[in-house]
């Protein structure tokens, strides 16, 4: 089947969302990890920031990223008419 312009738009929006979320994932994991020694002097809830991020903060952000993606894509599916029917 030939893809319509609308289909291409859907895929581009999906790619843009994916890239944005992957960027956050990368920063939270690798950029924060790289600067861990510098961040340990900031304290949050009694934790040094670097420890907090690796033990809890990053995990919460990961959960939010995945949840946000699922909801956004549900909306995007409906908006572009590629959602699934009853099953």
């Amino acid at each position: 089947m030939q893809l319509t312009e609308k289909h291409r738009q859907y895929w581009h929006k999906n790619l843009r969302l994916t890239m944005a979320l992957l960027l956050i994932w990368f920063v939270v994991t690798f950029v924060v990890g790289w600067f861990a020694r510098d961040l340990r002097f900031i304290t949050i809830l009694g934790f040094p920031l670097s420890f907090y991020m690796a033990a809890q903060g990053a995990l919460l952000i990961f959960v939010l990223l995945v949840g946000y993606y699922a909801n956004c894509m549900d909306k995007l599916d409906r908006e572009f008419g590629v959602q699934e029917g009853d099953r």
Partner: protein
Amino acid sequence: MASPVQSRFVSQLKRYYALYTGGFIGFVVLLAILEQMGVPNKLLGYIFLGVTVLLYAGIGILSRTSDVAEYYVAGRRVPAFFNGMAVGADWMSAASFIGLAGTLYLSGYDGLAFVLGWTGGFVLVALLLAPYLRKFGQFTIPDFLGARYGGNIPRSIGVFAAILCSFTYVIAQIYGVGLITSRFTGLDFGMGVFVGLGSILVCSFLGGMRAVTWTQVAQYVILIIAYMIPVVWLSMKHTGDPIPQIAYGYVLEKVTAREQVLNDPTTPEGAREAEVRAILKQRQEATEARLKALESGGNAYLVSERNKLKKAAADLKTKHDANPKMLEAANQAVADFPSDVSSARNAWRISAESDKAKSGPIAAHAEPFAGPDEATRSKKRKNFLALVLCLMVGTAALPHILMRFYTTPTVKEARHSVFWSLLFISLLYITAPALAVLAKYDVYTLLVGSSFSELPSWVSAWASVDKSLMSVTDINHDGIVQLSEITIGGDLIVLATPEIAGLPYVITALVAAGGLAAALSTADGLMLTISNSLSHDVYYKMIDPRAPTNRRLFISKALLVVVAGFAAYITSLKPGDILFLVGAAFSLAASAFFPALALGIFWRRANKTGAILGMLSGLGTCMFYMYITYPFFGVNAPLWWDINPISAGLFGILVGFAGVIVGSLLTAAPDKGTQEMVDYVRYPNLENDIKSKSV
């Protein structure tokens, strides 16, 4: 919107599992009452492990099936929430349940690489793979490679890699099963392996994916309850706050303050630590001197040393007033003396290294990449990030996890089920660092400084069970415990928490059952992956595509038994290091699968030659690096850019991506049918899907 049939199914499931959870809690309470009435601990352990194993087998029998879609993908009607729980149990293995908190206790911040890696990987699963694999909607991961790249070669490499990494991983799980059953029931290790294996087999043999799914949900419930109760209790004990994940920040502050006191020789406690460390330092230097003498003197040196010990023992014997204890010690020293040069070298090297580690100052728990100089610190940072990457990408490539996303009813549910999976998994991974800090606080404040005559009861109990898990020796003979006099094995932290927190034995049995659930559920998923790869991909797709369904299922079940027996046999040989096996599985999966899977979806131009080249070169690079650097294989070549063998996948992933890209660009673009298939997986619903689905 879900259909009425599916929503009735969901509400039924919710009711069943709510009843089940209530029933399980009631069962724990009942056993607690039995304990108060004086039923012996050993019997409680038997009842606990026996009932849970029978329960899993029971679910297996209830879910028996002979339908192909039910057997391979649980009928594709597992709701997102429940698939999340099943992925959680499938994912969290014995290493996560028992080993992780211990690793964090021993290595502080640097151990968090496992926490980050084992959760962050699910972001990759959610964004790059799960929805597309669900839309593709076949049965195995090699299926996708076969359909996307065409021909039997990509599929065969996929089968080989899936079996290689699943088998490496399953051995680590069966090992955990054997360890737990033998420790808590007193059966021997081999027996423990076969009892555990029996329950895995009943479950997956009768009902395939369907049975495994519903058992895994039940196992998740048990393992998360078992993990949480002792930690909450320990948190109440030390902070008065029942939410350990929030409360332990302040405990961490206290631990850090304690570390500074113990490291400061001007305080009385610090001075005593310094004294013990000085003795350890001497001991280390003495052992190193012996090692040097061994290198130059060889066997002659060993013989003369042994004779010295023998003579000392004989002299003691001739004295009639000799202290029997000293005589016993002298005889023991002769018996323990290494028999040949290589075993002497190993034993002395290990002892020198452990003394060296303990003679240094205490490493700060919360400090990232601690080291004496900039070079050490930057090496640690590099390895930390490399390990995180390997674990993340490996997570997004292990076939037994990816396969679970074929079981949801829709693409939408697949996306949501990654969310539930990650949420359920994070619950445990957020708790593990809290447990490590709380246990450390207990050891640093209550155990250190206590008197050898009145050790806490859990210390003496575990020290008598296994010296490698817990031992305290009064090195400077002052009658008081110093931190450098304590040796703790990582696995102790989770196993002993109930006792540290002062909980009854029934909770210890609960923790054992939780560990068993974690190991069994992962083993279930892995076994099924292996036997499905063989029966579906090799037999049905490549050897006999016209095989009737009942023969396909028969082959699959027969292979399951063969694979299980073979895995148990390998495990009973007790091959090496669990952590290495687990790490190896991740690196292998990451190098072999991830580039071909991700590019197969996101890069239309990727073709068969690229996939073959990428998978072979990625997997090859990873295996080669492991072979030349891991001490087990005895090559010990220099490391590349200081990257440890556990992160071999780093090179495999990079080479794998390069291989797919180069191979694809050098050859013609894939044909129209393949490109249409890429479109098919990218959109949850295209108008012509109904047509292609019927094919």
